[in-house]
């Protein structure tokens, strides 16, 4: 790219990649910058789920929209993206949770998302390793999982096919009006997209994005042990609160047959070390739901930082304080799911087109206008 790009996307995680692909498809000359290599940050640490979630109407709209976009894309994805259309089972422990499941089914259906309530017998047949005595589950067949680093690379390839260029090992120090500063290099452009995820606030002070640490444990291969993504209803409560720490049951089968066990949330700054106490609590919670996990071999643990905002919704839109600056960050645990929706919404806003869903809830200006405290 010898001329100045039209758009610079800061961050080659899966959200940045999706934004780059959408802008490049619109004919913009796009340059993507990443301080390390593509997909190596939060994108590499996550569970890779593609899941419809209804913590709020806006979240439901964005995740439903995005999973529809994924459904259109997945047939063309390379094998190494490891897409599995495994669906999700939201597990109810008791009758009151089952009531919540029925309500969830109603809400999902209203939104055009297929969902079915399973009885205990049906749940047991679907997932024999879940403990007896559960009240049932909500089955969402349209959900799935991917392997995120290769998902990001696949989107970057689409961007490259439309002329985008990727520069890795380039650390952006500052974003100014229609300009990005990286070391001694100043890159002029019309549009800057801050897709730096958990680091977004470093480049755009005032963005209330904080790192929300999570742990994951992955096992050896046990093909057939678990066929769907499994989540407890309490996951929503864990994701919703900004308390110091919480764990929630979330197990995912990978294409390899390995089991990915999560989840945990903590606010401890940027300390990436393994917190053994949290790992134990997380595993205990998983063993509550799937006792036979006890005998599976755990081969690796790791941590990652979700970009968290106070109202649990990402920032997608213009940052009015800085001309030409757009934000696409703050996706917490839904970056993989919602990257496609984010990219398309951003491209539509930049092009002045109507968006498929209401973008007001994601407007970055909402954080400028209200006093933000947590």
């Amino acid at each position, binding site marked *: 790219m010898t001329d100045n790009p039209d758009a610079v996307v800061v961050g080659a995680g899966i959200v940045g990649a999706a934004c780059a692909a959408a802008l490049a498809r619109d004919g913009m000359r796009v340059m993507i910058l990443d301080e390390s290599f593509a997909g190596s940050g939060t994108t590499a640490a996550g569970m890779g789920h593609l899941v419809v979630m209804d913590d709020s109407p806006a979240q439901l709209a964005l995740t439903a929209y995005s999973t529809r976009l994924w459904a259109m894309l997945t047939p063309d994805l390379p094998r190494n993206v490891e897409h599995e259309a495994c669906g999700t089972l939201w597990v109810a422990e008791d009758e009151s949770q089952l009531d919540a499941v029925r309500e969830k089914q109603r809400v999902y259906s209203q939104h055009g998302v297929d969902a079915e309530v399973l009885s205990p017998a049906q749940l047991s047949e679907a997932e024999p390793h879940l403990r007896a005595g559960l009240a049932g589950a909500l089955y969402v067949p349209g959900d799935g999982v991917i392997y995120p680093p290769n998902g990001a690379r696949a989107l970057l390839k689409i961007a490259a096919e439309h002329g985008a260029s990727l520069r890795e090992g380039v650390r952006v120090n500052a974003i100014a009006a229609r300009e990005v500063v990286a070391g001694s290099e100043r890159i002029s452009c019309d549009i800057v997209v801050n897709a730096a995820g958990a680091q977004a606030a470093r480049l755009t002070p005032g963005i209330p994005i904080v790192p929300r640490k999570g742990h994951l444990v992955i096992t*050896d*291969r*046990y093909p057939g042990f678990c066929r769907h993504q499994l989540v407890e209803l309490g996951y929503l409560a864990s994701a919703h609160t900004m308390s110091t720490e919480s764990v929630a049951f979330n197990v995912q089968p990978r294409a*390899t047959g390995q089991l990915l066990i999560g989840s945990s949330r903590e606010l401890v700054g940027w300390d990436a070390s393994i917190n053994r106490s949290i790992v134990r609590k997380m595993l205990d919670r998983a063993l509550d739901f799937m006792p036979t996990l006890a*005998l599976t*071999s755990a081969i690796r643990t790791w941590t990652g930082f979700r970009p968290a905002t106070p109202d649990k919704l990402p920032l997608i839109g213009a940052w009015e304080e800085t001309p030409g600056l757009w934000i696409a960050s703050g996706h917490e645990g839904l970056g993989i799911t919602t990257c496609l929706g984010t990219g398309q919404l951003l491209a539509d806003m930049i092009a002045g087109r109507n968006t498929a869903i209401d973008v007001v809830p994601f407007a970055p200006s909402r954080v400028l206008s209200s006093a933000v405290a947590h």
Partner: protein
Amino acid sequence: MPQTGVRTGVRSELNILVDDRPVRVAAGISVASALFNLGVTSYAQSVTGEPRAPLCGMGVCFECRVTIDSRPHQRACLIPVVEGMHVITASNPG
């Protein structure tokens, strides 16, 4: 206790099952050695279905994995044979 010098006498034997076949093996040897002596070439299968057999012999490489008494992913090189144990290798497609 271990003895210095030359091995004394003949080892006792015991019975184990290998892929549903009853076999007699020397007591105290490792499962990996027992399988080696039986001529097993495919202890485990790689993720793309290739036959694999012990490489490091010391519990590091995980290529000697077999199922023992219904527990999968057991490193045969680390485990001595025990009377009645049931070993399933990748030679048994079932």
